[in-house]
Structure formats: structure tokens, C-alpha cells
């Protein structure tokens, strides 16, 4: 009975704290929205008034409606096609039928998905290089001395500087008859990879070099072979730092992606913003603002996802991860 009361009390306390947090978040949001609306009303651009929360909400509805309309059109297209083909086959079973895929323009949701795929591919590409390179540099002082200046040199380079070079290289090298990926996709993914390589490399090096000296001595006494040493001692030790690096990398990659898509014309969120900007309708600014909010939200979710992954893979469930 006493235990129950205690539980109930802590439960109530927890509820109170949750309520407090939610209230504070709510007040923060509302204040922000209010200030935003007030200042938006005072800004007039050549494309009309700067969008406030109300206009942005309208555009969210619009984009949603467009997406639903596009899906309806697509299903209608495929239905018409299959009916037509069925008719043809009914008249002449040996007739050759043609199946065409629907070529509507990508909706906002399609563009979000394209962006997510591009950033994932770029990020994974970078990790495939960054983690082994970081481990190697962390283990070998010699390699580190050789590679460190190169890392420091390329780390601060902006994605926009890489992009023309990557574009030209991709155009020259990526010559396939039936390309699985479009050139703009490959260019964007590689640019993302080049920029999100560095945080993971650097953090992995730090993680690997700061493995407890006693544990290294244990490994030396047991005479663990190099690969088992990495697997059993180095990797678990360095895992928190590697994850810190990966989170920074993914955040960088997501930021870089938008710029890369604008310039490479990869049909993702970057291109959406660029097209709206070029379009210059009275709705454009509102639609761009929707994209800005969505980019922020996805960035947040990507980071949470990495945190979840880290918690899953971490051996020490007691550490607080932020």
C-alpha cells in the first residue's frame, strides 16, 4: 500500500513536470508565432507580403491537396492503361501491349522522399570511408601524421566549392546506357558525402586514441590479433565518439544537401525551393517557408533517429545521451 502511494506520488510528480514542460513549449511556440505574424505583416516584397503562420498553414493544405490530386491522377492513369491493354488483348491475344510508367511532376512529398534517399546514400557513402579511416588513423600514429593535414585542409571547404568539380567529374565518369540513378542524384550524394566525411573521421580518431591504456595492455598480454583487438576493444570503446561524429555528420549532410540540390537540380527539397523562387508567384514565399519548416523538422528527426540508434547499440544503458 505504501509502495503504491509512493508510485502514485512519483507518477503525479512526473505528470506535473510533463505538464510544465508542455506549457512552456506551448508558450514559446505561440510567442514565436505571434511575433512572426506581426513582423511578417510589415514586410512587403515584390512577391507580395512575407508569409506569416497563417499563410504557411494555407500552403501546407495546398501542398497536401496537390499531392492527393497527383496520386489520384496516377491511379487513374494506370487504371486507364490496364483497361486499354485488357481491351487490346481481348481482341487479339497475341498483340504486343505497351506499359508506360506515369510521368507526372513530383509533388512535395515525392521531393521530401528524394531528399531523404539522397542524404542517406551520401551519408552511408561517407561513413563507409570515414569510420575505417578514423580507426586506422587512431591506431597508427604514423598514418595520423600523414593524413591529419589533409583532413584539416578539406574540413572547412564549403559544399558549393566542391559542387562544380563533382558535377564535371560525374558527367565525365558516370556514363552508363541505362543509368539506375540520375546524374543530379549522384552529384548531390557525392557532395553530401564529401562534406559529412570529416566530423566522423575526426571523432573516430579521438575515440580510438582515447581507449583506456589498461584495456590496451590487457589486449597485449592476451595477444589478441589486430582484427579481434579492434572488434573487442577499440570499437566498443570508441562507439560513443563515433556516434557523436555520425550525428554531426548527418546534420552537416542534411544542411549541405539542400544547397547541393539547388545547384545540381536533384528533384528534392532544394530544387523545390529553387523552383518556387524562380516561379515567383504570390504563393511562392509561403511554400518556401513550408519547405524551411519541413527541413528543420526532418533534421530534428534524423538526429533523434541517430540518438535512438546509439542507445540501441550502446553497451552502457545508464549513460544519459543528449
Amino acid at each position: 500500500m505504501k509502495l503504491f502511494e509512493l508510485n502514485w506520488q512519483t507518477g503525479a510528480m512526473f505528470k506535473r513536470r510533463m505538464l510544465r514542460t508542455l506549457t512552456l513549449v506551448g508558450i514559446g511556440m505561440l510567442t514565436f508565432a505571434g511575433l512572426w505574424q506581426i513582423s511578417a505583416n510589415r514586410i512587403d516584397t515584390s512577391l507580395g507580403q512575407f508569409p506569416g503562420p497563417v499563410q504557411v498553414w494555407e500552403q501546407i493544405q495546398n501542398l497536401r491537396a496537390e499531392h492527393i490530386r497527383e496520386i489520384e491522377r496516377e491511379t487513374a492513369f494506370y487504371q486507364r492503361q490496364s483497361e486499354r491493354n485488357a481491351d487490346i488483348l481481348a481482341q487479339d491475344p497475341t498483340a504486343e501491349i505497351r506499359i508506360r510508367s506515369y510521368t507526372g511532376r513530383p509533388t512535395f512529398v515525392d521531393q521530401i522522399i528524394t531528399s531523404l534517399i539522397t542524404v542517406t546514400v551520401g551519408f552511408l557513402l561517407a561513413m563507409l570511408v570515414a569510420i575505417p579511416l578514423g580507426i586506422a588513423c587512431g591506431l597508427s600514429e604514423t598514418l595520423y601524421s600523414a593524413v591529419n593535414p589533409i583532413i584539416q585542409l578539406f574540413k572547412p571547404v564549403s559544399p558549393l566549392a566542391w559542387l562544380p568539380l563533382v558535377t564535371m567529374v560525374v558527367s565525365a565518369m558516370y556514363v552508363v546506357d541505362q543509368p539506375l540513378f540520375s546524374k543530379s542524384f549522384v552529384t548531390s550524394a557525392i557532395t553530401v558525402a564529401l562534406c559529412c566525411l570529416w566530423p566522423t573521421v575526426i571523432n573516430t580518431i579521438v575515440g580510438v586514441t582515447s581507449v583506456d591504456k589498461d584495456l590496451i595492455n590487457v589486449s597485449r598480454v592476451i595477444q589478441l590479433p589486430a582484427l579481434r583487438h579492434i572488434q573487442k576493444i577499440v570499437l566498443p570503446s570508441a562507439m560513443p565518439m563515433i556516434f557523436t561524429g555520425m550525428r554531426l555528420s548527418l546534420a552537416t549532410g542534411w544542411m549541405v544537401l539542400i544547397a547541393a540540390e539547388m545547384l545540381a537540380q536533384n528533384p528534392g527539397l532544394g530544387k523545390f525551393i529553387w523552383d518556387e523562387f524562380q516561379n515567383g508567384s504570390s504563393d511562392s514565399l509561403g511554400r518556401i517557408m513550408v519547405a524551411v519548416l519541413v527541413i528543420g523538422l526532418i533534421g530534428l528527426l534524423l538526429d533523434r533517429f541517430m540518438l535512438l540508434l546509439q542507445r540501441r547499440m550502446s553497451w552502457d544503458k545508464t549513460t544519459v545521451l543528449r
Partner: protein
Amino acid sequence: MQAYLELSNIGMSFNTDGKVFQALCNVNLKVDKGEFISLIGHSGCGKSTVLNIISGLYQATTGGVILQGKEVNSPSPDRAVVFQNHALLPWLSVYENVALGVKQVFRKRKTRAEMAAWILHNLELVHMQHAADKLPHEISGGMKQRVGIARCLAMQPKVLLMDEPFGALDALTRAHLQDSLMEIHRNSGTTVVMITHDVDEAVLLSDRIVMMSNGPAASIGEILNVSLPRPRDRLALAEDRDFIHARHEVLQFLYSRHKFPAADNHEKKLSAPLGMTAQTINNRNKAA
């Protein structure tokens, strides 16, 4: 006749910022098979360095270590080390920590089932089989050290090296572990070289106590034979004349003949009236 383990003319100097620091000089010691040796001395006298040279983690600048007629020049499971702060891998369970070494040492000699039985047997030796599936952070400090000892024993080392194995434990736990260690030593007949700060521990456990002089250029000062019969019982020994004599000898060495270097300065300071600096004495004189 050649000894089982021989330290021959070991010298060690460290090079820091261009300055050469001579830590050890002329360390000579012969250890017989099955002997229990304690290294005792003030902190900074190079006990750990000696141990690390025996383990092969350090390379002596001059001289060398010979184990069963072979020179030691790299670490090996032959000379397993129990570290002061247990050094268990925190992401592996107690069982897996012991298994790590066993899998490496008995790779080709034991089947999987034999290895599993051997790991459990060694956990049993240190009375830790009940916690086989726990992670190190879930067990107490004394238990961790037990597992650290089991990990070493399971590799069947020729020499068991212990670097202040019980230094970080409370007195009661330490006594338990000392008893366990005596039991293990009696049953397995392993040769042990142990570093300790604790005079009672050294006398209780050792066949010989190696007392080291202070650095720089530290060396072996004296070696004391402890010929107390085994098995030894800490309660009975407390009153034993030989035990008290041996204990007195070590204390004499440490606090009279080879005082901790910083202790001299400390004493000079204390020769002024207690709790009074020159300043307060002057002030008092003025007031008078």
C-alpha cells in the same frame, strides 16, 4: 642452476623532454617455480616499472628478464597481469571477459565445450560463478578484482603478475581476497610476483619480500625471507613471534633506513611549534 624466472641487471631510463630519468638500476632477482614474491617500496620507487618489464609491456634499457631459459621481450599470456583497477572490458559479461583470454590461449588445444567448462572452473576458483552473466558495472569492486584474477588464472600463466591488486579495496574485502589468493596459490602452485603497499599483506602472503630502495636509480634494497609455515591463518599469525618480527623488519626498512624522500622535508616543517608559522610567532612577540 638457472632460476625459473630471472631478472638480470635490469636498468630503465625514461626520456622525457630531452631529459633522461634513470628509474631503475641494477635490479637482480632470481625467483623459483611456485614462489610467492612481494615487491614493496615507497610510491615512485619503480615497483610498477619492474612488473611491467617482467610482463613485457616495457622494454628494459639494460639487462633483461629470462623465464624458463627464454628471454622476455613482448607481452604474452605466459605472464598474465592483474591490474590495480581490474581492467575488465565493461561491455563484456564476466564470463566473456574470462573467455576472451581463454579463446586466445587454448585456440587449438581445447574444444568449445572444454573451454566453457574451463572458464566456469576458473570462475568457481574465485567464487564468482554465480555472476557469470553480469556486466562488470553490476558487481562490486572486490568481485571485479576476483574476475580479473580469474581471467589471468584461466590463461594458465607461468608467472602471475599482480600490480597492487587489492589497493583499491576496503580492508574487509581485501582480507577475503587475500585468503582466496593464498588458497589459489596453494592449489595451483603458480609463481606470483605481486606489488603491494601493505606491510601486513606482504608478510602474510609472501615467501620472500623484495624491498626496493627509493629512486631515482632505484634498486633492490633488501630481500626478506618469510619462512612461516603454510597454510597461514591471519588470526593465529597476529600473535605469532616470527610474523611480528618479519613485519618489524619491513617497517624498519621502509621507515627508518629508506624513508620516503618527501618525508624528510615534512619533518623539518613539523619541528616548529605545532600549528604556528614563523609569522604568527613574530606577531606574538610584537604583542608582548
